[in-house]
C-alpha cells in the first residue's frame, strides 16, 4: 500500500512535467477541452435550474474536473465506467454527446435515458458509461458484477468505479472491495474525494488520514493523489489500470479535490467557511492545467483559451438544441419496466 500525503499545489510536480512531454499534444488538448466542457456544462445546468427550467435536484462537480478527466483519459475506448450522483464530469469525460446529455438533464425524450433518469442517472451504455446511481455507494457492488463479467469473458477491458468519500463508509464499499480483491477483478475503485459528504467533513466521519488507507483491509494497492492535478491523476490511475488489466486485481485511488458549490440546491453551506471555498477556488484545476500547458510550452495562451472557447460554444449549442426537444409521453410506462 502506498499512501501519499498530497500537497495540493497550483503548479505541476516533476512527474507531471514528464507526462507533459510524453503525452501527445492532442491528448492534452482533449483533456483540457473535456475539463472546460464539464465546467461549462455545470454552469449552464445551474443557470437553467435557477431560471426554473429544471425540475428536480442536481449535484455539481465544479472544482473536481481534473479527477474525472485525468482518470478517464487513461482508458481505452472499449473500457467502462460506472459512477454516481455527482456524475456530469464522468459522463462528459467518457465521451457523451453533449446535446443528448443536456436533453437528459432537462428530462427530454431524446435524452440518454429518455427523460426517465435525469441528472442523477445518466447512462450511455453503448458509450461504455454504465450509469450513475443516486444511492451513495450503490454502484460499487454493481461494479463487482460488471468486472466479474469482464473477467469471465476473458476480455482485456477494465472498469473504473467512481464514488464519493462519504460512500466509503457504506457497507457496500467494504463488501465490494473485498470481493473484487478476492477474485482479482479488473476494476479500479476511484474515490472522488471532495472532502465532504453533504455537510460532513471526512475527518468527522472517519478516524484515518487518507481514504486510501482502507485498501489495507483488502490487500490491494491504495494511493491518495492530488485530484486537482489532472496529470497526477492520469499517472496514478494509469498504473492502477495496468494492475487491473494484467490480472492483478483492483486498486483504490483516492482523488483529493473539492466541490465549490453546495452539495445540492438545498445547501446553505453552514458547515464550511467562505474562506475555505475561496482557497480552493484559487486551486482551480482548469486554470492550473492551462498554466501548466503554457509553461510547459505545449500550447500558447491563445491556443488554450481557444479550447476553452470551443468548449463553451459546444455547451451553449447543446443547451439551445436540447431545449427544443420534445417531452416524453406518459402512455404505456408500464411496458417499459420489464424487458421482453
Amino acid at each position, binding site marked *: 500500500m502506498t499512501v501519499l500525503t498530497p500537497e495540493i499545489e497550483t503548479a505541476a510536480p516533476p512527474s507531471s512535467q514528464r507526462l507533459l512531454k510524453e503525452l501527445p499534444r492532442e491528448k492534452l488538448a482533449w483533456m483540457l477541452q473535456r475539463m472546460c466542457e464539464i465546467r461549462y456544462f455545470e454552469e449552464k445546468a445551474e443557470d437553467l435550474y435557477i431560471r426554473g427550467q429544471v*425540475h*428536480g435536484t442536481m449535484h455539481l462537480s465544479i472544482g473536481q474536473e481534473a479527477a474525472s478527466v485525468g482518470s478517464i483519459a487513461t482508458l481505452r475506448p472499449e473500457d467502462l465506467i460506472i459512477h454516481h450522483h455527482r456524475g456530469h464530469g464522468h459522463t462528459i469525460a467518457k465521451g457523451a454527446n453533449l446535446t443528448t446529455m443536456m436533453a437528459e438533464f432537462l428530462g427530454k425524450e431524446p435524452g440518454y435515458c429518455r427523460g*426517465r433518469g*435525469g441528472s*442523477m442517472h445518466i447512462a450511455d451504455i453503448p458509450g461504455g458509461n454504465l450509469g450513475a446511481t443516486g444511492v451513495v455507494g450503490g454502484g460499487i457492488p454493481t461494479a463487482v458484477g460488471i468486472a466479474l463479467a469482464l473477467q469471465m469473458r476473458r476480455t482485456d477491458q477494465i472498469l473504473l468505479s467512481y464514488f464519493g468519500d462519504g460512500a466509503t463508509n457504506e457497507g457496500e464499499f467494504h463488501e465490494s472491495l473485498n470481493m473484487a480483491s478476492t477474485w482479482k477483478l479488473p476494476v479500479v475503485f476511484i474515490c472522488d474525494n471532495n472532502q465532504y*459528504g453533504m455537510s*460532513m467533513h471526512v475527518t468527522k*466521519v472517519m478516524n484515518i488520514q487518507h481514504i486510501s488507507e482502507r485498501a489495507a483491509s483488502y490487500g490491494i494497492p491504495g494511493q491518495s493523489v492530488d485530484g486537482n492535478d489532472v496529470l497526477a491523476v492520469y499517472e496514478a490511475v494509469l498504473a492502477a489500470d495496468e494492475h487491473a488489466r494484467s490480472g492483478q486485481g483492483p486498486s483504490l485511488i483516492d482523488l483529493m479535490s473539492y466541490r465549490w458549490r453546495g452539495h445540492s440546491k438545498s445547501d446553505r453551506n453552514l458547515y464550511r467557511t467562505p474562506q475555505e471555498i475561496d482557497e480552493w477556488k484559487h486551486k482551480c484545476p482548469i486554470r492550473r492545467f492551462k498554466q501548466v500547458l503554457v509553461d510547459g510550452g505545449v500550447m500558447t495562451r491563445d491556443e488554450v483559451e481557444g479550447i476553452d472557447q470551443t468548449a463553451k460554444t459546444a455547451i451553449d449549442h447543446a443547451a439551445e438544441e436540447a431545449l427544443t426537444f420534445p417531452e*416524453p409521453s*406518459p402512455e404505456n410506462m408500464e411496458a417499459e419496466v420489464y424487458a421482453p
Partner: protein
Amino acid sequence: MTANTTREITYLEAVREAMVQEMRLDQEVFLIGEDVGTYGGAFGVSKGMLEEFGPERIRDTPISEAAIAGAATGAALMGMRPIMEIMFMDFLTISMNQLVNAAAKMRFMFGGKCSIPMVIRAPSGSGTGAAAQHSQSLEAWFVNVPGIKVVAPSSPYDAKGLLVTAIRDNNPVLFMEHKLLYRMKGPVPEESYRIPLQSAEVKREGRDLTIVAYSIMVPRALEAAEKLAVEGIEVEVVDPRCLKPLDVDTIARSVSKTGRALIAHEAPVTGGFGGELAAVIVASEAFDYLDAPIRRLAGRDVPIPYNRTLERAAVPQVEDIVAAARALAQEGK
C-alpha cells in the same frame, strides 16, 4: 379530534415541534441520522435543534444506514428512545436487516424480555423530481413485518400528535413523512398532545362513497371531494393515519354506510397496502353492504420517473381521484 387552536404551522414544523418537546421532557430521547446537525437535515426538519440540544443528542452520522439503524436499535434495547432519521425512505433498503431481523424481532425472539422503543422517520414519496431512487413509498414492506408499527400522517396536526405517541411507544415505529406535505400548513396546538396510533379519522363526511386514503393522498382526496360535491357526489374521506395497527372499525363503518370504497395510495398498486385494506374491508361487516367492487387507485407499476410530466402521471393526482370516484359512484347503479 381536530385542532383547538388558531396557530398554524407547517407539517415540517409540527414534526420538529414533537421532537423538540419530547427531547426537552426526556433525556433519553435523541435524534440520529445523516446531516441532522449543522445541515438541519436534508429537508430542514431538524433546523435549530443542534443549537438547543448539542451534538450528542442531535447526532450526525457517517453515511452508513445499516449502522444508523443498529445504533438506534441498540440504544433502544438499552432503554433509550432514539429517533432515527433516514434521509430518504429509499435508503431503508440498507437498514432492512437491522430493522427487520433485529429491531422487530428481538422482543419476541428473546421471550418478551426486552423492548425496542424507537422511531424511524422516513421522508417518502415522489413529486420533487428526484427520480426512481429518491421517491419510493415502501410502507407495504413494513406492514408485513410483525414487530414494527407504521404511521403515515397527512396533516400537521396529525404529524405532531402521532409523532409524540410514536416516540412514547415502546416498539419500533416507522413514521412516514411525505416530502410534499412538509410545507403544508395547518392548525397545531403549541402544547404537547398525543393521538392514539390505532385511530383512523373521518376527514370528511359523505354518503355516496368512501375514499380510504393516507399520507399525500388525503389532501388530494379532500380536494377531489370538493370537486365532486359540485357534481352532487358526496364523498367520505377516511384516513387510517396508522397503517399498522389498523383501525378497521372506522373504515368498515364508513364503507358500510356508503356501500362503496375507493382506496388511494401513492405506492405501486401491485402489492401495495391497498390490498390489505381491500382484504380487511371484504372480511368486515362492510362486505354485506358493498354495492360495487372495491377499487384501488394507486401508483402505476413503474419506478418513479424524473421528467415532471411522467412523474405526475406515475401516481394518483386530484383529477385521477375525481375520475375514479366518479366512476365508482356510478358503478352497478
